[in-house]
């Protein structure tokens, strides 16, 4: 279980994230939404230990990111927005390399590799050089890499960006299928599509957490309207913060 307690973060003197608190358990797909510059990527980078918060704590199953960073990092899978990969490797070589780097035991590497390749529908591209893949498939390889070690927490920065509708649906299916064993936190903009399969929404506005909604508690159209209002104004229509 991921617990985020009162984290704040500043770039130089400008506060980028202020007092963010939330938690996420396996089974949840949590969408972090907000306008550009709201702090979504910064929040995910903080959770991935790529930035260090000014104050507050982040814990996964009781392991603190500041006091036990290596044990913490063993519990996360991360997909960055740019989705960088080694172009000179084949898909299979790259995933094997990442699995071994994560310390996966030799006898488990092949099993995990087959599992994740099937899961992300990359069977036809096992031996394809990464530089020959389209952007959509590169994203799939990046996601497969994040899934390989069965992490309890998956952090995905804009996994749907640049994908066409069928690829988005496939991504949603994959994430829904793995959500049973992992808490998934993803950043995104496509609210209407995310409402179809995410279980909870966090709304960020200028570095502040201005809303948290469980999808099942609301009618979808109403929730979409609420979220869009909060993304733009930082509050719901007719409400003062």
């Amino acid at each position, binding site marked *: 279980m991921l617990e985020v307690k009162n984290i704040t973060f500043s770039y130089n003197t400008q506060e980028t994230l202020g007092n963010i608190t939330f938690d996420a358990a396996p089974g949840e797909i949590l969408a972090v939404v907000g306008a550009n510059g709201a702090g979504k990527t910064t929040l995910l980078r903080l959770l*991935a230990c790529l930035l260090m918060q000014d104050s507050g704590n982040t814990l996964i199953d009781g392991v603190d990111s500041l006091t036990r960073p*290596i*044990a913490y990092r063993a519990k996360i899978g*991360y997909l960055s927005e*740019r989705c*960088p990969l080694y172009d000179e490797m084949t898909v299979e070589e790259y995933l094997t*390399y990442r699995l071994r780097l994560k310390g996966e035991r030799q006898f488990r590497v092949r099993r995990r590799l087959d599992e994740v390749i099937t899961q992300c529908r990359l069977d036809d591209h096992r031996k394809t050089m990464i530089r020959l893949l389209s952007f959509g498939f590169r994203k799939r390889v990046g996601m497969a890499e994040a899934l390989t070690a069965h992490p309890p927490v998956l952090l995905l920065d804009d996994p749907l960006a640049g994908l066409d509708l069928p690829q988005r649906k496939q991504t949603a299916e994959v994430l829904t299928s793995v959500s049973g064993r992992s808490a998934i936190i993803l950043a995104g903009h496509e609210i209407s599509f995310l409402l179809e399969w995410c279980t909870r929404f966090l709304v960020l506005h200028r570095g502040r957490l201005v809303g948290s909604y469980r999808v099942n508690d609301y009618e979808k159209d109403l929730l979409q309207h609420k979220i869009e209002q909060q993304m733009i104004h930082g509050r719901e229509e007719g409400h003062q913060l």
Partner: protein
Amino acid sequence: MSALQVTWLREVRTFRRSFTGTLPIALFLAVVGWTFVMSLRKSDGGVLQLQTIWGVSVSPWIPVLCSVLTMRLFAEERATGMIDLLLVIPMRERTLVFGKFLSALTMTVFAVSLSSLLPLVIVPWLSPSLKSALHPTAFAMTGIILLLQSSLWCAVGTMVSVFFRNQTMAAVVSILLCGGIPLAFYAVILVWLPELRLNATWMPLITNVYDFSTGLVSTYAIAFYLVMTGLSLFICSKTLALLRLRS
């Protein structure tokens, strides 16, 4: 397989497959061959032994080779954003740094070993009379000092690579650091403190090669190379850790 081995193996494979690995080694061998032949002609009838000529022909080019081999190690990862995915892996920064450093050192040692074919194979083949001048132990000692120098330049190159996203910039700064600063230091001594000229021998690193190849092993020199290599790698891993604190 440990994370260190995996990192080392991946980098060595990349060197083997890419022009940035094979081309510099080919050029290095060509330049060393030319320097060796020129030095051999120059010292004809002189007192220099074959292993010394080999050592001083190889030593000045090692910083250039190491700078080119190491320039992409971290600069490329930073430019592509791959560094994020490496820093998310549950391993210490020093493991990553050491794995990459070892891969560059492996390639350098490979290149230097190939260059040893010049005196060991080609010279006796071309002129059998020189075969008696070959002393395997002395060659091993020359090899040790070249290995120590290679590790220092690889460590400096790896360290510089962390500070840049542009590979060419990293290589230029690395060459300046490896060759330019010692030369500038010597020039300053010549201009401002000529009385120290005798104390500051011309290119102490070359002097070390002369000493080791003739059996004058200095523990001070060994300690210097090991400490400077360790210091460079330490700075490199701490800089990598500091990247987390910055945007």
